[in-house]
């Protein structure tokens, strides 16, 4: 295009009146918005609500498992709870929370006026509540909701599932469309909207990790769409992709699913790495140790994630060569992950450390995520996995990386940037209560799962042998305590949204670096309409 575009055409200036002023008022602001900050807020609130809903389902699971025997819910409903808990936490809580943070932060971090495709941004958010309405609604239809685990293995999801599987399939399609559009927006924003001087290797790590995450999302969400489509046709249209009688194979389902599923778990942890890499330097008052190696490590983890999927399937009877390949490829991932952990530690080494709330969560992340990573390394060893497979050891592993990993990083991020969003410091007393209650209860909740798992307690079963009873009571008590602790967080966030608290400076945290700390607190409705020049 030519110079006709160098300023806005006057006729259209009226369409932009809100562009130069504050936010519009009322419900329509949220339904029709194209503002990255509004959409970020919507994503974050949606994720929080889903976190509480999925958490309530976890409470049902822990109540049933408080004692051996069947007491509270019937086994079919128990299975629905484990399934929908998993789906909600993965697709409804963790992923939207990261997308919300990306929306709020990436434009402010790279000096862009908004996301690259603002209307599509609105669409990718608003289809999500509808998708989860369908998923949650399917719990109430005849025959019950999905009860085959969040991994929906065939033939559980085909031959043995209820009619509501069709609702599950189409709701997953919508979630996928949402993720793909969100990821396209993030990638295009980062490629095309950086302020002059914001070169690739000057980008904050949160931006880098999200760029790579977005690539993973676009690469694997369509594969998930393919998997659910084949489940749909196998169940309703007589195909036999996952049925040996027609020449297919149920194990093929697992290959396709985990080709999506393994990159998916990195989708849920790479942005967390980015968040921790922003927070640790601030409170250690030192630049991040090994910035370039962090970027390369993130890219390596992403590439390796495509060639490790079958470590979820060691017990399916693959040829030994395949088992060896996937074992070694998986263990290779601990190298770039180790680079990251050591870089964070080296950043703190001889730093002028202070321990504000975001830093407490970041430190808890580093220690507890590493525990989760190490149990992952144990699971990667094929012969050992034969014993651990489908036990509570696996449950312990992925809850350490996802709850004390991904969820703790999201909480760290909220505490870190919330004052920038609202202009007010959150209630520090409540925040401390939230941190310590969560930290203690989460370990009471998940650590004993390692023990019962090693002793052979299977996952996704509503009943268990008597010898696991003591630990399960502890686990359930930890679970209820962790659930209640999040209500402290809810109170704190509501107070913050009502703009209660002390006003903060633009920089908020003494050692904070980056463009988002150069703009006023609270961040104005529109920022960087003319890009800053980054030196």
């Amino acid at each position, binding site marked *: 295009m030519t110079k006709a575009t160098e300023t806005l055409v006057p006729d259209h200036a009226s369409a932009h009146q809100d562009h130069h002023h504050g936010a519009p008022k009322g419900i329509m602001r949220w339904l029709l918005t194209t503002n990255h900050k509004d959409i970020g807020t919507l994503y974050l609130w949606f994720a929080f609500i889903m976190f509480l809903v999925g958490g309530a389902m976890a409470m049902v699971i822990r109540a049933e498992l408080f004692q051996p025997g069947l007491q509270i819910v019937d086994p079919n409903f128990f299975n629905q709870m484990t399934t929908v808990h998993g789906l909600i936490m993965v697709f409804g809580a963790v992923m939207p929370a990261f997308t919300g943070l990306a929306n709020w932060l990436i434009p402010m971090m790279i000096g862009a006026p908004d996301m690259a495709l603002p209307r599509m941004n609105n669409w990718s958010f608003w289809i999500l509540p509808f998708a989860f309405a369908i998923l949650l609604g399917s719990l109430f239809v005849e025959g019950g909701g999905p009860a085959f685990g969040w991994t929906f293995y065939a033939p559980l999801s085909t031959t043995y599932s209820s009619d509501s599987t069709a609702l599950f399939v189409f709701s997953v399609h919508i979630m996928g469309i949402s993720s793909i559009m969100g990821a396209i927006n993030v990638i295009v924003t980062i490629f095309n909207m950086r302020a002059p001087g914001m070169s690739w290797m000057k980008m904050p790590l949160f931006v880098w990790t999200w760029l790579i995450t977005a690539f993973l999302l676009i690469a694997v969400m369509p594969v998930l769409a393919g998997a659910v489509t084949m489940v749909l046709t196998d169940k*309703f249209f007589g195909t036999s992709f996952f049925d040996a009688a027609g020449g297919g194979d149920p194990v093929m389902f697992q290959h396709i699913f985990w080709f999506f599923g393994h990159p998916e778990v990195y989708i849920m942890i790479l942005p967390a790495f980015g968040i921790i890499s922003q927070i640790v330097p601030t409170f250690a008052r030192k630049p991040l140790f090994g910035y370039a190696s962090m970027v390369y490590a993130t890219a390596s983890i992403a590439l390796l994630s495509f060639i490790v999927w079958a470590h979820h399937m060691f017990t399916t009877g693959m040829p030994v060569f395949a088992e060896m390949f996937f074992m070694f490829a998986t263990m290779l991932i601990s190298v770039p992950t180790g680079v990251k952990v050591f870089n964070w530690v080296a950043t703190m080494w001889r730093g002028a450390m202070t321990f504000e709330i975001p830093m407490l969560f970041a430190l808890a992340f580093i220690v507890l995520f590493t525990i989760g990573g190490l149990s992952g390394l144990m699971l990667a060893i094929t012969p050992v996995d034969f014993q651990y497979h489908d036990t509570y050891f696996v449950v312990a592993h992925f809850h350490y990386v996802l709850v004390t990993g991904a969820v703790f990083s999201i909480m760290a991020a909220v505490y870190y940037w919330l004052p920038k969003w609202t202009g007010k410091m959150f209630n520090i007393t409540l925040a401390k209560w939230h941190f310590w209650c969560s930290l203690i209860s989460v370990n009471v909740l998940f650590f004993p799962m390692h023990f019962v798992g090693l002793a052979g307690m299977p996952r996704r079963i509503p009943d268990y042998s008597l010898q696991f009873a003591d630990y399960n009571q502890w686990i359930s008590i930890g679970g209820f305590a962790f659930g209640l602790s999040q209500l402290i967080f809810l109170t704190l966030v509501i107070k913050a949204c009502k703009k209660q608290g002390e006003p903060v400076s633009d920089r908020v945290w003494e050692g904070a670096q980056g463009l988002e700390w150069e703009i006023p607190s609270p961040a104005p409705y529109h920022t960087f309409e003319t890009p800053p020049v980054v030196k």
Partner: protein
Amino acid sequence: MQQEYQRYYVPAQSPWPIVGAVALFLIAVGAAYTVIDNSNGEQGFGSRVLGLGILTLLVMLFGWFKNQIDESMSGLYSDQLGRSYRQGMSWFIFSEVMFFAAFFGALFYARMISVPWLGGASNNAMTNEVLWPSFNAIWPLLSTPGGTTTQQMQATGLPTFNTIILLISSVTLHFAHVGLEQGKRKQLTIMLGVTILLGLGFLTLQVEEYIHAYHELGLTLQSGVYGNTFFMLTGFHGMHVTLGTLLLIVLFFRVLKGHFTPHNHFAFQAGSWYWHFVDVVWVMLFLFVYVL
């Protein structure tokens, strides 16, 4: 970058995304209940909700694109915004590639692993011996372990003809694009029109091929994993050709109205990329589903 920064156009509030969200909701619920009703042999509300959803989606697409075209025609866009759209479209096509990859993956897995293993390959001698001792692993799988039989779709005849049609359509579309860039509007109109006709011709022959498969070969969606992969791959490809043809028809009418300039024609570029992508998928399909 330019010396003087062109402001990036951030649109004001828009009603279309939320309409689109409602549309997807109706389509999902409607499609799910259509499928459920179908399998139970009942007549339910599913198809009506689905229809309403598709209608809402069409209204949304019409409104959104009209909005977009008006903005483009009034010169609101900058080079930077054009790059956003082009990059967005390329990543969308990449996501489509991965969607087809899932089904090609299923085809390769069935062909290279699950069918040979059922026939006793690798260390699966006992699988064959115990489950289906009379099963012979031959691709294409015309006789399944469960006993369903069918016939093979030959690569010669219609499929070859269709391949030639699609390849030519890619060339004609390219010449339409060249015409647009060189300001030769007549070449643009004719070549785009020819591309659309070729697309429609492909679809017609595809329907004929399906009829032939169902009625003469007994090759159906239910004929084991050969029929499954055949119909899912060619079916999703056919859906994409349909969508691509519709896109080209919309572009054709815009060309007649005098839209697009040699430098500003993102929509045309996007439609053309999409068409070429659909073509490449067909070449892969022809190779792996029909020929090999």
